[in-house]
């Protein structure tokens, strides 16, 4: 029996930084196992949207739902803190600049969440870390510190860290934008593998080719609104809007 409720739902999301309106009413729905890529020029609001889903940004208006639970509940203080910490445990977030913890080994980066937040035993957590590192191809780096890893390796560890919480959805915020070109593929390979396992994913990216390859659906954002969305084939071959066409021409040519 498949659950037909969407995994992630955003309704009427609005967000401003001072006078600058970054999100001007965004609606978005991601089904279980679906992969949605969000593309658009810098400043289009795509990162802000993703960060709002994880509540790293607080929306001025609108709702975010995760698996039938309201993320931005109108709670105050401690009650909200408790709620949001529980919700965040169900979402994995991968950042452009990795945000690995430099003071912890690769192992501890991955196991700290499960041990502290879920009460997983050290032994079980280590087993989990070994399994996840095997999956991202870094089993031999388990005792290294982040400062000794390449950018691509750091990002793969960051993905393993997020996966260790067994999230319902993975959010990728320009996960390969800070990497040297030759390191992009190793990270993309891991994301491809997650796609094959039907992980629900939201991917903010600059890489059109990769988006077209893994995404079930592509959203084009510009100026704080979703200009156009559709399956990658249609979107890339026959974009409906002029703005989408201009943007894609620039990027696909590159």
């Amino acid at each position, binding site marked *: 029996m498949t659950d037909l409720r969407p995994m992630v739902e955003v309704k009427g999301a609005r967000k401003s930084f001072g006078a600058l309106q970054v999100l001007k009413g965004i609606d978005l729905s991601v089904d279980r196992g679906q992969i949605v890529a969000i593309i658009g020029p810098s400043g289009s609001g795509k990162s802000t949207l993703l960060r709002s889903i*994880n509540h*790293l940004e607080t929306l001025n208006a609108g709702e975010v739902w995760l698996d039938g639970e309201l993320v931005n509940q109108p709670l105050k203080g401690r009650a909200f*803190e*408790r709620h949001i*910490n*529980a*919700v*965040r*445990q*169900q*979402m*994995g*977030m991968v*950042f452009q*600049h990795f*945000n*690995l*913890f*430099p*003071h*912890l*080994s690769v192992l501890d980066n991955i196991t*700290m*969440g499960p041990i*502290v*937040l879920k009460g997983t035993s050290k032994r079980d957590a280590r087993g989990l870390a070994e399994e996840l590192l095997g999956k991202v191809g870094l089993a031999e780096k388990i005792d290294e*510190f982040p*400062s*000794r890893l390449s950018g691509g390796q750091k990002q793969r560890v*960051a993905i393993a*860290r*997020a996966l260790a*919480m067994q999230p319902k959805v993975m959010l990728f915020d320009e996960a390969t934008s800070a990497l040297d070109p030759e390191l992009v593929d190793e990270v993309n390979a891991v994301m491809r593998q997650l796609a094959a396992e039907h992980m629900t994913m939201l991917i903010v990216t600059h890489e059109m080719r990769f988006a077209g390859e893994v995404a079930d659906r592509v959203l084009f954002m510009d100026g704080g609104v979703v200009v156009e969305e559709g399956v990658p084939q249609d979107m890339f071959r026959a974009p409906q809007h002029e703005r989408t066409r201009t943007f894609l021409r620039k990027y696909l040519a590159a």
Partner: protein
Amino acid sequence: MQGLDFSVVLPYSGILWMGVWWTVVLTVSSAVVSFIFGIVFAVTLLYAPKIVTYPVRSFIWLFMGTPLLLQLFLIYYGLVQIGIDIPALAAGIIGLGLHFAVYNADILRAGIVAVDPGQAEGARSIGFSRLQTLRYVVVPQAVRNTAPPIGSNMIALLKESSLVSVIGIAELVHAAQLGISETFRPFEFYLTAAALYYILNLVLEAGLRRVERKVEVSR
């Protein structure tokens, strides 16, 4: 002039070693106190409500603006007066510990602010609470990044620990004074004590360099 004769020190070597031992105990305990309170003060100043930060801020201001020696008198005689009769050693540890906590707090506060905001976001995105984020991610990194200046504070602490001799703690200076009171040879005894401090200082510096090197990978 009576001429110098360092052999007068020899019969007192046992007492001087005890002095060294107590100086080490005093330095280590005060260092721990100064470190813990340094973190507490720093976190309080940054995150606590105003009603809490205000007294902490005044305390820091007061302790930064007055000499350690005066603070030791206040703690030693003051506590007795308000009915808390603690041994001199405890008063010394509290005095030295709080004095250096104030300086550590200043360094750690800057260190905490300097931790990349992405680190807190990384922790929060996994589901860590504010306090857990501070405890497991931000503070450990701030401590690593500020290891060199905190280390210099610890070196200063070793030397300043000599001040507690004035409230009668039997550390190195006090041990030397014991020898002087029987032999009337201050030059030999104080110079010996100085040499012992110098050695302790070298050992501590070497230890801190090792810690810094170790910490370097995990920054």
